């Protein structure tokens, strides 16, 4: 009916070739009615009075908490069943291919749990600070909300994001290759203020953050980072944290790997040495080709990806004016520039960054071009404010091997075919 209507991508089949072809045909049919080359046939989306233009719509309060349009029902988090042994220890993925701007809606922020979602009652929420402090303290949620607050927009990326692609391409969708990523405005209390309240002892060098969930998730954090820009957040994008994001309070560790951002945080212990918890020894250490492993690889390296076109977001309009868009981010600061290649990295052109350029936040980039309808090998390459250049897969494998699991920030290649379909590929 309307050519702006999303093609009928069915839930559970949006990535398949069959679904793509169906939607292309549907879109093509609509184009005939609406395109300038077929003026003889008027567009019934205009000539007929639509239902929504004649009849009264729903009143207020139909949904006390607003929901997306039913036409957007496929814009959801998805998980890859075979990645993890149980749904309580699983991860799902942000639908990056459907989003724009830099802020991730709260309900689409990817989830990663170690023992499921803790359903903490806010009245029973407590945050304890103990260890090398003058005054071990306990705060309620109301106590935390009486401290001076800070707002900051930060990306959170799981260290294992793109980890399934170390040895080769295997997931056909930006949501799955890069979707352990979100970007949210947090409101909370700087750790520095809480530590001032407790009084750090001179030997205080490390902080252990511990969650209230059934894995009591714990990670060590150096005091310098804790005092720099970390905070206990109780709001995300203006509203209370979602349960799956740590309600009622979580740790925010800007620019550093997601597993440090302990959710449902119940305790901060101050110490003089790191704890070497399971999540910083057995996991979240980076095995190199020589059998050595890097540990405490906290910082997220500069990275970018084209979110559309991508396998789940094919080009449906044939040749002509085309928007390439994507995200770039760095745990070391802001993004200085993003370049885009249409020929698999032989030649590059500067992309346009639009929207806020904030420290340790997602940046949105665009490259607008006139597609000639021929096959294209799309890539993006970001450079951050520290001068770090996003590497190719080959460069990363050369220094790390393929067993690292974590911190794969290499350049992604999407193969845009003549028919508009897009595939995750690796190139020479």
């Amino acid at each position: 009916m309307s050519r702006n209507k999303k093609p009928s991508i069915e839930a559970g089949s949006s990535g398949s070739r069959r679904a793509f072809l169906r939607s292309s045909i549907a879109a093509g049919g609509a184009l005939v009615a609406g395109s300038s080359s077929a003026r003889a046939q008027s567009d019934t989306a205009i000539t007929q009075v639509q239902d929504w233009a004649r009849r009264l719509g729903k009143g207020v309060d139909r949904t006390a908490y607003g929901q997306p349009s039913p036409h957007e029902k496929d814009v959801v988090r998805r998980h890859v069943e075979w990645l993890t042994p149980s749904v309580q220890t699983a991860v799902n993925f942000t639908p990056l291919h459907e989003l724009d701007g830099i802020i991730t809606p709260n309900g689409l922020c990817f989830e990663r749990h170690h023992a499921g979602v803790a359903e903490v009652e806010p009245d029973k929420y407590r945050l304890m600070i103990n260890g090398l402090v003058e005054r071990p303290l306990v705060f309620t949620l109301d106590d935390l909300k009486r401290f001076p607050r800070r707002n900051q927009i930060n990306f959170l990326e799981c260290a294992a994001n793109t980890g399934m692609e170390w040895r080769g391409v295997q997931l056909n969708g930006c949501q799955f290759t890069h979707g352990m990523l979100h970007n949210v405005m947090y409101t909370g209390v700087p750790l520095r203020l809480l530590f001032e309240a407790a009084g750090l002892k001179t030997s205080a060098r490390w902080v252990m953050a511990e969650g209230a969930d059934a894995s009591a998730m714990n990670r060590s954090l150096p005091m310098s980072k804790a005092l720099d820009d970390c905070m206990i957040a109780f709001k995300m994008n203006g509203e209370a944290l979602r349960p799956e994001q740590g309600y009622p309070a979580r740790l925010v560790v800007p620019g550093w790997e997601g597993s440090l951002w302990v959710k449902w945080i119940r305790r901060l212990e101050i110490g003089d040495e790191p704890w070497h918890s399971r999540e910083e020894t057995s996991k979240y250490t980076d095995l190199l080709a020589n059998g050595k492993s890097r540990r405490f690889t906290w910082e997220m390296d500069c990275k970018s990806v084209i979110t559309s076109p991508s396998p789940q977001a094919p080009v449906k309009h044939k040749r002509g004016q085309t928007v390439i868009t994507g995200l770039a981010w760095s745990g070391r600061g802001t993004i200085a520039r993003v370049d885009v290649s249409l020929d698999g990295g032989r030649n590059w052109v500067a992309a346009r960054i639009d929207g806020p350029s904030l420290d340790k936040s997602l940046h949105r980039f665009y490259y607008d071009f006139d597609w000639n309808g021929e096959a294209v090998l799309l890539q993006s390459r970001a450079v951050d404010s520290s001068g770090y250049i996003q590497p190719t897969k080959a460069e990363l494998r050369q220094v790390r091997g393929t067993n690292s699991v974590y911190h794969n920030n290499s350049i992604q290649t999407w193969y845009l075919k003549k028919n508009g379909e897009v595939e995750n590929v690796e190139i020479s």
Partner: protein
Amino acid sequence: MSRSPERVPRGVSGARFAPAFLLLLGLAATPLGPACAAEPGRGFGLGRPATAEEIRAWDIDVRPDGRGLPEGSGTAAEGEPIFADKCASCHGDFAEGLDRWTALAGGVGTLQSDNPVRTIGSYWPYLSTAYDYIFRAMPFGNAQSLKPDEVYALIAYILLMNGIIADDRFALSNENFNSVRLPNENNFIEDNRPDTATLKDGEPCMNDCKPQVEVTMRARVLDVTPENDDNGAAKRAIE
């Protein structure tokens, strides 16, 4: 205002610590309002002292130096039935791991192979991590339910399955815990990134950066994306 010395928390004036801390105060540029500047910077009178009993209830962590280990002991022989009852349904009778659940034993000599198996015996640097993690997170779905003697016995059993101890009557305890070292301890190194090019190595190439480009691998060949998941191709999990 936030840079004034009065805002430095009490007791952080140690010589090694102070310079970094002052630097960080400058970098953080925390946007605190005037009301904050008027406060003494000692917590705004918020929070209350934690009681000793409360700290005991939550302070469950154990460090590599043994700090935090509770009193207790257990042997592998005592651990075996506990393991069979509470652990083996996921980790296997011999801690070898079932399905996608973690293997806790074996894997020695695999870390440089194409299929590294990261177990307590082959990979973990410190045994204390096993105590810390088992008590806080295991058994899966019944966390913090094990008694100290049970945790020591389970760890002894896992050590036996890894061949790190040979005697199933050896009683692992808080007294002798640190005498057991794990073989991979010295194979962890500090983060030395960035390990790829930065602008110091030159501007990134913009034109004619490489010869002809060919597609060498395609996701559709493996085709393990959830919506397409209709064949049984090999899948590499993230663990």
